[in-house]
């Protein structure tokens, strides 16, 4: 009997058929995120206008299905939103990964809620948060020295 699909279909689809995995020639913000323990790397490219709105975003890189699908879902969610909303969603995502999210917060995360089970896979947490961590690093206000909303202990 063949083994069952390993990840849920939403995750597998985002991994095999990503919408945002490409270069973004007119990006004005680019940052590379690395997960040194397993070698996942994601470069996030964003175009953010003067009003702080994320007009477009893509990612490039190489990593496991969780890291790639998570970045793709994240971009689905934050393109067209402003900086503050993106950072808010990031903190919700981190809460979800810590298994501390409410049902209504989970709804805000839309498809990214498909990664909720990662909270029970400690070895894959770093994969799931890689894109989000990188996004928070790019978007956090330059003058802010506060702890990132997207760090995870």
């Amino acid at each position: 009997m063949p083994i069952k699909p390993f990840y849920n279909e939403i995750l597998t689809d985002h991994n095999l058929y990503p919408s945002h995995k490409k270069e973004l020639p007119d990006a004005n913000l680019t940052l590379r995120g690395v997960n040194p323990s397993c070698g996942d790397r994601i470069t996030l490219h964003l175009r953010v206008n003067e009003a702080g709105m994320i007009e477009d975003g893509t990612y490039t890189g190489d990593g496991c299905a969780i890291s790639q699908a998570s970045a793709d879902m994240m971009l689905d969610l934050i393109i067209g939103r402003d900086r503050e909303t993106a950072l808010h969603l990031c903190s919700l995502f981190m809460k979800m990964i810590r298994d501390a999210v409410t049902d209504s917060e989970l709804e805000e995360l839309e498809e990214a809620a498909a990664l909720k089970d990662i909270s029970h896979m400690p070895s894959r947490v770093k994969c799931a948060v890689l894109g989000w961590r990188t996004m928070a690093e790019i978007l956090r206000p330059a003058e802010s020295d506060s702890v990132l909303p997207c760090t995870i202990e």
Partner: protein
Amino acid sequence: MHNSLRNDFPFFANNPGLVYLDNSATSQVPACVIDRLNRYDLLEKASPFRGLYPRSVQATDDYEHARDLVRDFIHARSSQEIIFTRNATESLNLVAYCAGGTLIHPGDEILVGITEHHSNLLPWQQLAKRTGAAIRTLFCTRDGSFRAEDIDRAMNEHTRLLAITHMSNVFGQINDLQSIAQAAHSRNVLVVADGCQSVPHIPVNVSELGVDFLAFSGHKMLCPMGIGVLYGRKSLLESLPPFLTGGEMIEDVTMDGAVWAPLPQKFEAGTVNTGGAIALGEAVSYYNRVGFEVMMAREAALTRRLMDGMAVIPHVRIVGSSDPDRHHGIVTFTIDGVHPHDISAIMADQGIAIRAGHHCAQPLHAYLGINATSRASIMFYNTEAEIDAFLTVLSEIRGAMGYAD
């Protein structure tokens, strides 16, 4: 086929559903090794070297007997050439720290194989930074071997030292250290070899190989973690300053200075890992009782079964040679379109332990143009049924990841 040696390893009875194919990372331990360690720690423990009472004298004898067993196991000429360390990483760092200002000077070049594990690269990088020396890379062919002409071309009048593995932890390929050492020595270049993968799997004769230093870890050869070995040519070890200083490694101390103890104590500062060394001695005795002939025949047969099975699974690519006899139980691979961590996670879900990542050989992966790989590694206690279980899961991984093929 029934594998009676497997019964010597309680790990398997305790983990009945687990297929353990991560032996290059660490091997399992036979009960006799732990029994011997326990006997020392529970019934015979005393500080070696200094006590005048019988227990201490016995601990010294047992510790030194373990050293003699290791000496014979790798065919060193003298027990003074066997230094006990924590692991191969510490062994290599020992050489690199002591080499600054003695073997390596400003303007010298250190040649490092592209195949090297980080622990046989970073100590040399740091040494180069401290001393003003330079690192040069020795590149391998696509199947992981080094060509004599490339080695010759990579050395110049500034080259002082070559750091190279005996058996790659990615390719499983054995390097012809004897020829390499001859070529290096003809140009006054010292050879530091990493024996982590070779010493547990093939007979190693340092006197024949002619290398100047060889490092290996006990935990990859049937021992607990925390004991390792540095072999060094006696005249070289004598010429080097000590690594760590403190107790046990001195002959005479004043407030102004000290006279170092003779080899090997000069390089074994502080109270030593007596139990670990005794356990390593017992592991060596286990190797001697079973014999490399038996172990190698099993590992070769299992490697062939594994690679024959992998060869017929579409989208699976083996890194390095397609000849199983050149892999020595180490089979690194990729699957088109599936990241190694997903492979490893699916394998884990099916009760199979393999390694994913860059196997502490990041520059090699960059050179091969691969971000990460998966690795199955075999030890003589594995079984045909385990190989078949691995192959079955391997053939289903693309399907489990959503591919239609």
